[in-house]
């Protein structure tokens, strides 16, 4: 098992290298002279030259790339052109809110979607099943910002149960922290819940047809034992896969959700950085998200082997 995990980590290295090369090339894919692009429309020729010098843009591409990678390996993501703060510091300040939002959303999704899917599969064809699937279509079709504004209007403005927007760090207490995340997590999780509920239902339906489920019934096991001990674990591999893919969806959705609920997270930072053409910051964020995604995929692969003893690498 350990050697498998080590081999998998080793195999992610080339992926990360390619991602790094791509992220670094961002600056050069944009048309025109990078220094001019960074300096913006109102910059004087001196400004452009200063930027070119400070970023080392006058040196050959591969040398620039090499030194950039070297610095990253030492934990230096560069300095923001706009704020002059180190990129790692800026990301560090914004990481908490985004991670909190993603975690709460993920937890909410799994806790809601998987039981819904199991219930729908168990009662397949019934009114409950149809209601759940109708809800799934609904959740799938609504854009995050629509759900977000509707939730904020109803629960924050009309009923005043929850704050309209903003973010409170966890250090100031669990409830204040959670209070601010409930509405954004629901808004962000809608699509995700719909997706996972559907996948869970489909896989469970297939598993419930299998001979070993009949055996479980023949043994006299109760419905709960059949559904959760025998069926759900057999259905786990596709469900876990989709949960993993969904994390990529979450990253994209977080950008929009943070704007709607004014959460000072990485999503907001990304938008700001793009608007200001703050390339070092953009590069740092994309690199971080890629890394998270590769890591999640690794975790999913390891989960497969835990769930299914037939999977051996």
């Amino acid at each position, binding site marked *: 098992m350990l050697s498998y995990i080590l081999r998998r980590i080793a195999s992610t290295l080339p992926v990360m290298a390619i991602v790094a090369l791509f992220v670094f090339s961002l600056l050069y894919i944009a048309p025109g002279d990078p220094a001019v692009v960074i300096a913006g429309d109102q910059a004087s020729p001196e400004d452009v030259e200063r930027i070119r010098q400070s970023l080392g843009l006058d040196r050959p591409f591969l040398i620039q790339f090499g030194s950039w990678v070297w610095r990253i390996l030492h934990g230096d993501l560069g300095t923001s052109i706009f704020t002059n703060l180190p990129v790692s510091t800026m990301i560090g300040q914004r990481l908490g809110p985004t991670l909190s939002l993603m975690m709460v959303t993920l937890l909410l999704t799994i806790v809601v979607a998987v039981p819904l899917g199991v219930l729908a599969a168990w009662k397949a064809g019934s009114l409950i099943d149809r209601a759940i699937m109708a809800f799934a279509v609904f959740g799938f079709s609504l854009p995050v910002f629509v759900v977000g504004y509707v939730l904020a209007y109803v629960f924050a403005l009309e009923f005043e149960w929850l704050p309209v927007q903003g973010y409170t760090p966890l250090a100031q207490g669990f409830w204040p922290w959670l209070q601010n995340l409930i509405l954004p997590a629901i808004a962000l999780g809608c699509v995700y819940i719909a997706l996972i509920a559907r996948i869970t239902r489909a896989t469970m339906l297939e598993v419930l047809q299998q*001979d070993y489920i*009949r*055996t479980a019934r023949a*043994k*006299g096991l*109760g419905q709960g034992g059949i559904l959760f001990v025998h069926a759900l674990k057999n259905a786990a591999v596709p469900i876990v896969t989709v949960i993993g893919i969904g994390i990529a969806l979450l990253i994209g959705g977080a950008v929009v959700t943070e704007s709607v609920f004014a959460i000072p997270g990485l999503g907001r930072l990304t938008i700001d950085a793009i608007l200001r053409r703050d390339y070092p910051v953009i590069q740092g964020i994309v690199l971080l998200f890629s890394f998270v995604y590769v890591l999640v995929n690794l975790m999913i692969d390891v989960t497969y082997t835990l769930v*299914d003893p037939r999977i051996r690498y």
Partner: protein
Amino acid sequence: MSEQLLRIDDLHVAFSTRRGTVEAVRGVTLTVEAGEMLGLVGESGSGKSVTGFATTRLLDAAGRVTGGKILFRGQDVTKLRGDDLRHLQGAAMSMIFQNPRAALNPIRAIGLQIADAILTRKRISKDAARAEALELLRAVQIRDPETRMNAYPHELSGGMCQRVMIAIAISCNPALLIADEPTTGLDVTTQKVVMDLVAEISAARGMATILITHDLGLAARYCRRIAVMERGRIVEEASPRTLFSSPQHAYTRRLVAASPTATSRIEDLVTEEERERHAAVVSRPRQELAHGTPPLLEVRKLAKRFDQGAAAVADFSMTMTGGESVGLVGESGSGKSTTSRMICRLIDPSEGEIVFDGQSIGHVASRDFHRSRFRKDIQMVFQDPNESLNPRFTAFDCIAHPLMRLDRIRAGRELRQRVEECAERVGLPLDLLPRFPHQLSGGQKARVGIARAIACRPRLLVLDEPTAALDVSVQAVVLQLLDRLRRENDIALLFVSHDLNVVRMLCDRTIVLRNGGIVEQGESRALFDNPKTDYTRKLVEAIPHIETGPMLAAAL
């Protein structure tokens, strides 16, 4: 002790399908006494399994008991709900199934699966349940039970999986065990071991058993009473001896005739009346080949090694002449399918030579063999006609494809003529040609598979267990068809099978394989009547012989 344990009274079971309600069981009445073993015999669709599932209350959602009673110790099973039902399942009666590997949860260690069954009945600790599970594994004679406790189903053989199923079934000392095709798909030797075990355990525990099977010979060997089912009804109930010596019902007569025995010939497989009705089998004696005719197929020192493993096949040599039929028998894992696939050029041999019609074809990569001019000459009929036909192709497409690919016939009148001619040769009614596989019966699908294989007039037909998935009456017709095709068209048949009775009938010569090597070969009748090696003798003895009668029942 002739206490009545189970009494089924005029049972009706219906399934709601897309095309309306289908009655699968239409008035079954039977009784089982405590401790007895009853055989319930019939072909697919006869309702025998449905009767079993209705009794254990395991019908799937579409099935409903629409009439009659199932009295177990005087209590109507069909009316049980909730806890009473759960008490019945497992504790009072239990069931083992066909395809034991699929019947076990693939991702749960077998020890846990047995313990699950124990824990639903008894309020004991997990450790105590584990200890009981270990005892049960010993009871079903699994070697090295301590290690096997942690094994997963995919790590066990089919026979061992069925033993685990038996362990689960007997874990709570049920009074009735329903065994639904418990040995179908297992090797003859494994089949005997598993059935002996079931019989032994039933006798030792005084447990009544219903053996549901399509194999009359198997039922005759282990049961004192056999009920024959046809289309949802019991048509005859008698002792095996009476059933075989003087079957009363026409269907039983047909079934008895179609069950191959050690002495039956291909012509015998249908009853007198049927033979007259079809009057098809033209027996034309095969002309003797002139001395010195070169063999059609010559295989020399064929071997196949898979990655990092022992050889699947080693040092396999044989020859075949045109129009000859050769049987390839052995238990699963003996390498018979691998060998046949190499000869068909579907997989590449690691070593050795395959010479067809004087040309070496062994070195042509299997990936490129479809371009060889010999692809037409060597064709294959696959095991399961349900799985080997493309569900999106009509019967016509299936037969037309090889003609278009290999004989370069364009779509049009000629193609239609050729396809219809093939269909006629295999006895497939022409109005079935536009149908898709799911609209055809098992026998019809088998015919489509054979028609596809003979479409380009091959000279060698390799058949991999072509009748294993078919009912005996359908098997009889398919075997006659193959024999006729061989006589009429001089097609050589390489017949891979674990059913020795069938091989004995159909094949001139037989090759016995074990662990990838040839154990024995020779003229079929001589080989089976007088086996030279212990292995062949064991294989032959394991076949349930109808003539020898219910040995076990007599011994009890």
